[in-house]
C-alpha cells in the first residue's frame, strides 16, 4: 500500500469522525496559536522598546553613578557624579556637543487643594535639545534661572492638565515640598517611556533643586542622577564615550573599579533587547509546553482509538495488511491531525497578532520563520506522539483483535 493510499484512507477515517478529530486537534491548535501569538507580541514589544529609545534623541550617551557591577547589585550608589563633572565634560571633551545634567526625585507637588506625587527633575536649559523635548507654551528653564536659583517650573503636560485643565497656567504658582514655584512653561506631551509616564513630571533649575528641595546630599558637590550627553555626530559616539570615561577617571582619581557607567544608546538598546528577548523566549517556552501537552492529547485519543478500532485492525490484518501498513496508517492519521491543528492554530495565532497590532501601539508582527517552525514542530509532534499508538495497533494479534466484540 503506497503513501497516497494510506493518506486517503486516513483522511477518510478522520472525516468520518469529525467531532473527535476536532477535539483531538484542539490541544495543538491552542498550543500553536499561543506560540505564534507570544512570539509575535514579544517581537512587537522589542520593536516598541527600541523605537522609544531611539526617540530619546540622536547620538545620546548616558553617564550614571556607580559601576555596572554596583548598579546591578544595589540601590545604594556612590554620590560621586556631580554637576562639576557635567560642566567639565561640556568644556573639555571635544567630541561632545551638549551636556544635560539631571537630578530627580519623586516629590509632592501641590496647586491649591490639588496635589500629585510627580517626578521633579532638576536640570539645565540644554535638557530640551539633548533629550528632544519641545515646549507647548511658555519657555523652559534659562541659564539665568540656573545661575540665580530661580523658583520657576516647567510643567509636564499631564501635570498641567491635572492642575489647570484648559486654563493657561503660566504665571500661576505651585508648591513643591512647601516651596513656591512660578510656572513659566508647559512641555509638549512626550508619551510613556518604557512604561514611565514622561508627562507626569515637572522641571526646575538644577541649582534650585539642590539648594531648596533636596539639600546637600554629597560631600563632593551637587550630585546627579545621571548626565545625558549628545555627541557631535554619530561617528564621534565612540570617541565621546572614550573621552568622557577618561575625563571622569581622572577627575575621580580612579585606579581600580569605575564609580560611574557610560552607556551609549546602542548599549541601552542591547540591554532592552536582552530583557525583551528573554521575555519572548520565556513566553514561547510556556506556549511550547502547551504544544507538547497538545501532542500528548493526540497520543491519548489515538490510544483510545486503537482500542476502539481493534476489530478494524484485526480485519485489515486478516485481509493482508502487514504490521508496517497498519503502523503507517496510524502514523499518518496522527500527523494529519497534528499538522492540520498546527495550521489552524497558526491561522488563529496570526489573527490574534494582527488584532493586537490593530488595538495597541505594539507593532506586533509574525515572521514567516516562526510560522514555518511552529507548523513543522506540530507535525513533528504528531509523528513523535503517533509512534506509541501506531506501534500498539501494528502489534495487535489479529486473532485476538477479531474475536473482541
Amino acid at each position: 500500500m503506497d503513501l497516497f493510499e494510506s493518506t486517503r484512507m486516513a483522511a477518510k477515517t478522520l472525516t468520518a469522525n469529525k467531532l473527535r478529530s476536532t477535539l483531538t486537534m484542539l490541544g495543538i491548535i491552542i498550543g500553536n496559536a499561543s506560540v505564534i501569538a507570544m512570539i509575535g507580541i514579544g517581537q512587537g514589544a522589542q520593536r516598541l522598546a527600541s523605537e522609544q529609545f531611539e526617540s530619546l534623541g540622536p547620538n545620546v550617551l548616558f553617564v550614571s553613578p556607580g559601576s555596572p557591577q554596583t548598579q546591578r547589585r544595589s540601590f545604594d550608589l556612590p554620590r560621586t557624579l556631580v554637576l562639576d563633572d557635567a560642566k567639565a565634560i561640556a568644556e573639555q571633551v571635544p567630541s561632545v556637543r551638549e551636556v544635560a545634567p539631571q537630578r530627580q526625585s519623586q516629590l509632592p507637588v501641590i496647586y491649591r487643594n490639588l496635589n500629585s506625587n510627580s517626578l521633579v527633575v532638576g536640570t539645565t536649559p540644554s535638557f530640551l535639545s539633548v533629550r528632544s523635548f519641545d515646549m507647548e507654551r511658555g519657555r523652559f528653564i534659562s541659564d539665568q534661572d540656573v545661575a540665580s536659583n530661580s523658583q520657576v517650573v516647567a510643567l509636564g503636560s499631564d501635570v498641567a492638565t491635572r492642575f489647570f485643565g484648559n486654563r493657561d497656567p503660566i504665571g500661576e504658582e505651585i508648591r513643591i515640598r512647601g516651596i513656591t514655584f512660578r510656572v513659566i512653561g508647559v512641555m509638549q506631551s512626550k508619551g510613556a517611556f518604557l512604561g514611565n509616564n514622561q508627562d507626569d513630571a515637572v522641571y526646575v533649575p538644577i541649582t534650585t533643586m539642590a539648594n531648596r528641595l533636596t539639600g546637600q546630599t554629597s560631600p563632593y558637590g551637587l550630585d546627579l542622577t545621571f548626565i545625558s550627553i549628545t555627541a557631535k555626530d554619530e561617528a564621534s559616539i565612540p570617541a565621546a564615550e572614550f573621552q568622557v570615561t577618561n575625563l571622569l577617571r581622572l577627575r575621580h582619581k580612579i585606579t581600580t573599579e569605575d564609580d560611574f557607567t557610560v552607556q551609549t544608546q546602542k548599549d541601552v538598546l542591547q540591554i532592552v533587547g536582552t530583557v525583551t528577548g528573554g521575555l519572548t523566549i520565556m513566553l514561547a517556552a510556556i506556549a511550547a509546553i502547551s504544544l507538547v501537552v497538545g501532542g500528548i492529547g493526540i497520543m491519548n485519543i489515538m490510544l483510545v482509538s486503537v482500542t476502539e478500532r481493534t476489530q478494524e485492525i484485526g480485519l485489515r490484518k486478516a485481509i493482508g495488511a502487514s504490521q508496517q501498513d497498519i503502523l503507517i496508517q496510524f502514523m499518518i492519521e496522527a500527523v494529519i491531525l497534528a499538522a492540520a491543528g498546527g495550521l489552524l492554530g497558526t491561522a488563529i495565532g496570526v489573527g490574534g497578532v494582527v488584532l493586537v497590532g490593530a488595538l495597541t501601539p505594539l507593532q506586533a508582527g509574525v515572521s514567516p520563520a516562526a510560522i514555518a517552525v511552529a507548523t513543522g514542530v506540530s507535525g513533528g509532534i504528531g509523528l513523535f506522539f503517533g509512534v506509541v499508538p501506531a506501534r500498539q495497533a501494528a502489534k495487535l494479534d489479529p486473532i485476538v483483535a477479531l474475536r473482541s466484540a
Partner: protein
Amino acid sequence: MPTTTIVRLEDIYKIYGSGETEVRALDGVNLTIEQGEFCSIMGASGSGKSTMMNIIGCLDKPTSGRYYLDNVDVSQLNDTDLAHVRNRKLGFVFQQFHLLPQLSALENVMLPLVYASVSERDRRDRAVEALTRVGLAHRLHNRPNQLSGGQQQRVAIARAIVGRPVLLLADEPTGALDSKTTVEILNIFAELNASGMTVVMVTHEPDVARSTRRVIWFKDGQVMNSSLTPDEMNHLMAAA
C-alpha cells in the same frame, strides 16, 4: 482428473503454556484438502477447530509441524510474509462480517486489493465483478449500516473472493443470520464451490455442515474423522 492439494498439514501441534499448565489446542493434526473441495470443520467448543482455522488461515503459527498451502511451506514464515500470503491466497468470511462502517460496499470489497497494490481502476472493476457475483450489483455505494445482515455477509464474501484466493475460509458464516438468510448465504458458497473455489467452513451447526460435501470432525485437538459424509455425520450426531 488429477487434483491439486491446497492444504496439507503434517503433525501440527499448537501448545499453549508449559509443564503443569500445558494446553494442547492441536495435538498432532494431519489433514489434506484438495482443490475444489467444499468441507466443514466441526467439533464442540474447545475441540481445537478455531485454532485449526487460525492456522489454516495463516493468522497463527503452529508450535511444530509443517503446513503447506498451495504447495508452499508457510509454517515458519514471518509476520510480513504471512500477511502477504493472507492477502494473495486466502479469503476470509467471519461471523460478525467485519465490514468497515465508514466505507461503502464497493470500498470495503476493494480493500484487500489496496493492500495488494492493484491499480485503482482494476480494483474498482474487480470489486464490481465480485459484488455482482454475490448479487449486490445494485448496492455498490451503500454503507454497511444501510444493508441487511444477509447483504452485509454477501459484501464480506465478495471481499473474500475479490483477490481470487486459492482457499475461501468461513468462520461460522451464518452464525449471526436467520434461517432463510442462512440458506441464501450457503447457496452462494455452493455456487462459488461449483465454479471451482475451494471452501472450508468452521461451524458448530449440523444443518450448516450438512450443506458441505465433507465434514472434518475435531475432538480434543485431534481429527477424529477427516472425511465424514453428511449422512455419516447424522449418524454420529444421533449416537452422541
